[in-house]
């Protein structure tokens, strides 16, 4: 073989760094409560919108948020996708439904899974409820909720999504 065929053209460089991660005050508060099975958002003192999971600020107003609001585990599908490919760092087998869900009483969506239904039946405005893991498996994590499953309730009109009170949708 010639020298050229022998030449080094690439190398593998392992770059592994160790960090100590801290969740932040507002997220830590949220995670502590979800460990007890309670969903807790924060209300902006200026615009009154409720954020969950809370970040400690209202991104729209740029002010700290303090007031806590306990929310039910019922939500509405704001939008969704069916993920058909495996995702790095995500152990769930495709295909699975990932949805933007708005909890009753909240004004912002978060991403979670929908299951116990035909993927093709998922739709915008659909009512869903959390399916929790067994209590003994609860930790400081959003995946204490295994997924959301459809509820037998009428759909929420699109313009009402993200505007429901904690008492939910009466139809």
């Amino acid at each position, binding site marked *: 073989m010639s020298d050229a065929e022998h030449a080094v053209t690439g*190398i593998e*460089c392992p*770059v592994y*760094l*160790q*960090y*100590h*991660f*801290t*969740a*932040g*005050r*507002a*997220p*830590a508060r949220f995670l502590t409560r979800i460990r007890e099975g309670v969903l807790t958002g924060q209300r902006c003192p200026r615009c009154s919108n409720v954020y969950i999971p809370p*970040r*400690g*600020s*209202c*991104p*729209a*107003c*740029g*002010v*700290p948020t303090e007031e806590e609001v306990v929310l039910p585990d019922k939500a509405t599908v704001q939008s969704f996708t069916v993920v058909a490919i495996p995702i790095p760092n995500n152990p769930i087998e495709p295909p699975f439904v990932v949805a933007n869900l708005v909890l009753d009483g909240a004004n912002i969506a978060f991403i979670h899974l929908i299951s116990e239904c035909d993927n093709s039946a998922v739709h915008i405005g659909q009512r869903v409820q959390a399916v929790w893991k067994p209590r003994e498996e609860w930790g400081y994590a959003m995946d204490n909720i295994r997924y959301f499953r459809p509820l037998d309730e009428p759909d929420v009109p699109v313009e009402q999504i993200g505007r429901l009170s904690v008492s939910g949708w009466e139809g």
Partner: protein
Amino acid sequence: MQELAVVAFSQSDCLARAGAANEVELIMPQLQAVYAQVGIRNAQDVDFVCSGSCDYLQGAAFAFVAGVDALGAVPPIKESHVEMDAAWALYEAVLKIRMGQAESALLYGFSRSSSGDLPMVLSQQLDPYYLAPLWVDSISLAALQARLLLEAGLASEQDMAEVVVRSRRNARDNPHARLRGDLSIEALLAEDMFVSPLRRADCAPVADGAAAMIICTVARAREWGVPYAVLSGIDHRIETHNLGMRDLTDSPSTRLAARAAGVAEGPVEVAELYAPFSHQEIILARALELGPDTRVNPSGGVLAGNLMMASGLSRVGEVFRRIVAGDARRGVAHATSGPCLQHNLVAVLESAS
């Protein structure tokens, strides 16, 4: 050219660990403080926002995106970000004002560098084929530089200790400092080596936190009716990444930046230098041609507490504070980036009168 003013500055305490506070929670108090200083509500009341941070200090991609949540960016704002110390965010904002697209700007920098092992994180700033895979840490590189300086007879261990002693002494008046107090040179020199020839005290302590600043045109500063310092010059220069090809006992890039910023065009009463290692303050003071009349690092400098990604902006802020307080009429601020002072920024501030 548009005359520029620094009108507000705030920085957090230099905390060994910021505890529970996340980025938004670190930044927000500093933003609220600078808003209060000029009497504005939030980022909507300035024309431009620019921040400085580094994903690898945080250990996550897009660390700066969370920062936007602290701004109240609804309706949307003109905003940008440098993956550098926020002193370079200041530089970007200066250009924005000079080109007439803004009359005022908010700058901030932040990090939680205690999350990782900073000297090892910074080793990955080196070239990715020859040095980064060896994990040559930033303290060791600075130690190589220090020995060159010592053995060239350009500084002594005593000189380095004097820098540390002065830093700790000055920091007694700085409520944000991490390290302060009375030390003797003898006691310092009696301490064990850390990475020889550096002792621990020669190295800036890592700190978590944030700093924020507001700059504007002089016309806007008058409109706001707030005290201000004139930002009369700012420039920055970089050098080769090959440490073997640099004269590590000098800082030619600082010299170039100082000339372009006009440092020598008047007396320098106060200088705040971003020297994360004691010997680097000696190199910088020489490169800036500071005389005996200049008070160097009256805040204690970063040897008293180093807010990565914000310390450069804080140097500007410290000079600003002294000028508006009437402690000085003209001062120089310096920021650095990269290994062994590779990249340097110099700003000149003057009193308004």
